[in-house]
């Protein structure tokens, strides 16, 4: 290890470690350290995303496109988002605040149309196709396919709103909810892993990047 200590790095590691511990303190109970970290976090992150949107959306997409109008008249369409964006800001003027409904309607309409199509494609058609698998006899593949199909069908029946869950439909809906429960249990079980991984990552930071790093620096 060289004699020169990177002050920025040293400072950064210590700040990170202290803030990490402040957030962890929440597990014990609400306390001034957590309150401090929480407020700092909300402030910094709100500022972060504001700048992020400015540099990645407003600047290149809006200003960049408007600047191209002299070369290519097509870019005049970017007047639309500029206008709608300004209407959004008119909320600050109480008398004109109703104008913010226009941009909101634009957003809602656009994504209602888009989602209608996209979800029917990816969540319905693309899911029906792999569910249609052959059941040809008494073997692992066929039985698994059959279970998959039964699960999908009864699961869909569970979501029936206009039929009372009684009789055949009642039984099917019951089996459906069982499949949903198995799915939830499985997802949960799978998640446990990931969550522990995150804690491992954080602990690796505290143990190796902070304590050992500082120890090495001090012992030098």
């Amino acid at each position, binding site marked *: 290890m060289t004699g020169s200590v990177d002050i920025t790095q040293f*400072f950064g*590691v210590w*700040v990170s470690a202290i*803030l990490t511990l402040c957030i962890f303190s929440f*597990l014990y109970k609400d306390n001034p350290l957590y309150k*401090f970290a929480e*407020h700092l976090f909300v*402030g*910094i*992150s709100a*500022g*972060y995303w*504001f700048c992020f*949107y400015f540099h990645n959306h*407003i600047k290149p*997409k809006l200003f960049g496109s408007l600047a191209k109008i002299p070369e290519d008249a097509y870019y005049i369409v970017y007047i639309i*988002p500029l206008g*709608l*964006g300004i209407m*959004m800001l008119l*909320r600050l003027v109480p008398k004109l605040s*109703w104008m913010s*409904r*226009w*941009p*909101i*309607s*634009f957003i809602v*309409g*656009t994504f*209602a149309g*888009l*989602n*209608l199509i996209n979800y*029917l494609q990816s*969540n319905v058609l693309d*899911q*029906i196709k792999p*569910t249609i698998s052959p059941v040809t006899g008494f073997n*692992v593949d066929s039985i*698994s396919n059959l279970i*998959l199909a039964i*699960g999908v069908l009864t*699961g*869909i029946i569970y*979501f029936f709103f206009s039929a009372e869950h009684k009789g055949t439909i009642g039984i099917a809906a019951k089996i459906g909810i*069982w499949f*949903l*429960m*198995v*799915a*939830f*249990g*499985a*997802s*949960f*079980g*799978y998640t*446990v892993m990931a969550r522990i991984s*995150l804690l491992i990552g954080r602990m690796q930071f505290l143990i190796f990047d902070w304590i050992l790093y500082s120890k090495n620096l001090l012992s030098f």
Partner: protein
Amino acid sequence: MKREIPIIITFVTGILMIIDFFVPHPPFGGLSSLFEIFFTIIFSFATILGILALSKINIEKIYRKRETYGYNIVLLVGLVTMIFCGLVWGIGEKSPFDFLYMNFMMPMQSTMFSLLAFFVASASYRAFRARTPEATLLLIAAFFVMLGRVPLGYQMTKWVPEVFPSWLHFLQLPIIANWIMDFPNTAGQRAIMIGAALGIASTSLRLVLGIESAHIGKE
């Protein structure tokens, strides 16, 4: 007029997006990409509203000297510093903005995220109890997958023969776990996906037709 025009806008844009999907011919084709860009611009503008509202609440608290107003000052300092750095020096790598992100925001993000390890443990201790048949299924599935996904589970059942008879091989925990993930779990997920898509289609249709217009304050 304050209500009709927004409903007309929703209708027209919604229909245009559906046409865009099927008609590649200009001016329809590519309209969705363009509108998605418009959306990012509009919500970026709207962020100013959010920032102002956030500042307003906190400034008021400081002004009224609520007992914990020190924390509101912390929040505002964080906000202003970040915006100042971001607008003056940009947000590129090695900028002050990046330094603040990497050493202040990022560790808090990951720590907040890692709290989930603790919450997952307490939730499973409390909630995974065989109270009802449904809860029992949830418990069993979770149990197998939890064990099957770690080396420990593999250790527990690796003595089960791999070759003959083949169905016995199935009793190995990782294989059971994978099977649960691939079949019953996929089935459940798929049912939710299909149902959700129909819910989305129906809601979208109601929005486009102006029957539901919660977004503009009308119920």
